[in-house]
């Protein structure tokens, strides 16, 4: 490319110089011929006039000297005066004179006309001479046109000098501009690539070795990339935040998962409403701030750094516990790198899995506890069945005892399974209330009948203090009875012999309050916190000695809550407990 340009420039230069020289030579040649013609003509006219008078006086010597002198002075190749019969009177070359003296007269012969001719060789002039009283003669001159040889030489020398100088100058310019021309060529190639659709900066940038032009080109590419990056960021921000992206913004705010977009400097570019809730900060403060102000966990920050700053493609998911005034919780963070042409960024998705975690733990605990609770009666049944089989025939008393234990354990197993089925129904949400008119006085009367004998057997004083008029409530009779049975049954179970149990039932503010107060072993403050959890048994030796599944209170409370009521407890260790079941009188829930 560069060579083509150089040769073209050189050819144009040399051609221009050659044309100039040719034109100069042509002009000089024409000018010399014209001058020579004028010179020869003038000399011929002068000689003709002078010769006429001198020849008329037969004075030939001066004529011949004049001719000789003219031939020398004007560098004439031929100069001659001749008579019509061809006799030469005078000549530039004296040896060619054929007539020494003029005759007195001579014949005229053909009339000679004055003429001047010019050709490539020279200028030829013929002039008539009228020798008075004698006859006509003619003067002939021929002078070679002398071309200016010095001019040709000078032109050749000049042309050679100009050519050489031009080539040297061209070589110097070529050498000095070689890298520049290469850079320009490379830039041209890049421009053609852009025209064909090439977008990658790495493919379009040039080596800095190409010089300033290449460096300037690379700066242009960088500026273009920066502008495109800013434009992309603006578009991104506009899409997410600006009025143009109102729909997208609304869509993101409709997601219950938190969504945060951070750039490669960890500055938050976007946060949806859920993210603001999870980070417990106003969205205006989050957007534009550094994410580390709102997320402190080192591992999570490291993951965000890796995705947004380091440009890693690794995706991370972390579950992080948090604590608020309302208790603890678990947030799951998904960190996803966002690949963009201009720069890296990361998307952080946040979801609250606290309830799932609680449910999982509860389920695991339930399975573990259920397994444990089922194993004990099953083991007892197996052992006593083996005893009865092996020793029963020999020892009828042992067989009877074994069968009694098997019977008790079977009933225990039945209770556990019943309770577990109820818990399972509650967990699955399939437990439904069958509303009916429930006469509380009847329910309480049945309750008294059920437990009166047991209380008497344990020497416990049990009293029912009922409101004068108990209402008929809309509720599920079996489930209300179940809740009351569990509370009263527990009171009898955990109240030592000689104790007292008071059942107080009152109606106030549209609520039925069923209170069971005992003078039993009581419950410690620590145990009260977990009292309504499934399979929970208080860590008290006296409790461990009493059979129970730890499901009763949990079920009772669920029954109450299904009716829109609740169960609360007040207790003091070694002094007794008070369980209060409240039920709305006009239950419509569930």
């Amino acid at each position, binding site marked *: 490319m560069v060579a083509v340009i150089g040769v073209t420039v050189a050819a144009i230069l040399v051609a221009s110089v050659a044309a100039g020289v040719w034109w100069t030579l042509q002009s000089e040649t024409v000018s010399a011929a014209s001058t020579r013609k004028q010179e020869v003509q003038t000399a011929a006219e002068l000689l003709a006039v002078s010769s006429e008078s001198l020849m008329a006086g037969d004075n030939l010597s001066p004529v011949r000297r004049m001719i000789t002198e003219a031939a020398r002075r004007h560098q004439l190749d031929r100069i001659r005066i001749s008579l019509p019969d061809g006799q030469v009177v005078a000549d530039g070359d004296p040896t060619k004179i054929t007539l020494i003296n003029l005759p007195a007269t001579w014949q005229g012969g053909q009339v000679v006309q004055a003429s001047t001719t010019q050709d490539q060789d020279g200028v030829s002039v013929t002039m008539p001479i009228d020798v008075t009283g004698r006859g006509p003669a003619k003067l002939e001159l021929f002078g070679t046109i002398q071309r200016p040889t010095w001019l040709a030489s000078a032109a050749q020398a000049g042309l050679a000098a100009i050519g050489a100088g031009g080539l040297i100058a061209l070589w110097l310019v070529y050498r000095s501009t070689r890298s520049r021309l290469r850079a320009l060529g490379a830039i041209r190639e890049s421009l053609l690539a852009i025209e064909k659709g090439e977008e990658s900066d790495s493919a379009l940038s040039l080596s800095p070795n190409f010089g300033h032009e290449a460096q300037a080109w690379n700066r242009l590419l960088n500026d273009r990339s920066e502008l495109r990056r800013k434009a992309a960021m603006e578009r991104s921000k506009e899409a997410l935040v600006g009025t143009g992206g109102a729909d997208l913004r609304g869509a993101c*705010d*409709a*997601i*219950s*998962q938190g969504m945060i977009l951070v750039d490669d400097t960890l500055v938050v570019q976007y946060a*949806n*409403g*859920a993210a*603001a*809730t*999870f980070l*417990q900060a106003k969205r205006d403060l989050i957007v534009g701030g550094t994410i580390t102000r709102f997320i402190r966990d080192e591992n999570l920050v490291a993951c965000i750094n890796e995705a947004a700053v380091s440009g890693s493609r690794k995706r991370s998911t972390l579950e992080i516990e948090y604590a*608020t*005034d*309302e*208790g603890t*919780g678990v*947030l799951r963070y998904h960190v996803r790198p966002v690949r963009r042409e201009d720069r890296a960024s990361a998307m952080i998705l946040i979801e*609250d899995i*606290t*309830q*799932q*975690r*609680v*449910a999982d733990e*509860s389920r695991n605990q339930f399975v573990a506890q259920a397994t444990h609770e089922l194993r004990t009666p099953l083991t007892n049944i197996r052992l006593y069945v083996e005893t009865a089989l092996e020793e029963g025939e020999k020892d009828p008393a042992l067989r009877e005892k074994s069968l009694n234990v098997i019977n008790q354990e079977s009933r225990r197993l039945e209770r556990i399974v019943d309770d577990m089925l109820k818990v399972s129904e*509650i967990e699955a*949400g399939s437990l439904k209330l069958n509303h009916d008119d429930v006469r509380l006085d009847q329910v309480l009367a049945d309750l008294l009948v059920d437990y009166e004998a047991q209380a008497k057997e344990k020497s416990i004083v049990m009293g029912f203090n009922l409101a004068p008029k108990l209402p008929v409530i809309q509720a599920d009779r079996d489930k209300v009875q179940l809740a009351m049975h569990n509370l009263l049954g527990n009171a009898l179970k955990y109240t030592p012999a000689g104790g007292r149990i008071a059942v107080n039932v009152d109606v106030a503010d549209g609520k039925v309050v069923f209170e069971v107060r005992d003078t039993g072993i009581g419950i410690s403050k620590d145990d009260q916190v977990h009292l309504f959890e499934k399979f929970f048994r208080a860590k008290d030796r006296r409790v461990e000695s009493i059979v129970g599944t730890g499901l009763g209170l949990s079920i009772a409370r*669920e029954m109450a*809550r*299904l009716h*829109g009521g*609740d169960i609360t407890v007040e207790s003091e260790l070694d002094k007794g407990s008070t369980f209060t079941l409240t039920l*709305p009188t006009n239950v*419509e*829930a*569930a």
Partner: protein
Amino acid sequence: MQIHEQKHGAVTVLTPEGPLIQDDADAFRQRAMTLYAKSLGRFVVDVSKIPFMDSRGLETFLDLSDHIGQSGNVLKLASVNKTIREVLSLTELDHAFEQFEDVNTAVRSFL
């Protein structure tokens, strides 16, 4: 008006008891807003003990719904009684809330 709180696992059930009217509505709104922020959105309103409500009470529910909606969540109402259901239906606002038959079902919706 009394406002009760019950924890069901990680979900808090807010149970206002009494008519949702006048200043009581404002008190309930304040309590619910605070609870929503603290519980990160895991809460349910048990409306079974609201016998009736006035325009201010209705406005309170709408404000709560809008506030919660900005976080991509929806106000969950449990045990909606007949009166409240009719109020919401007549004002064509029943679609603004997620309604559940009972508290347990509402709580399970967080799973």
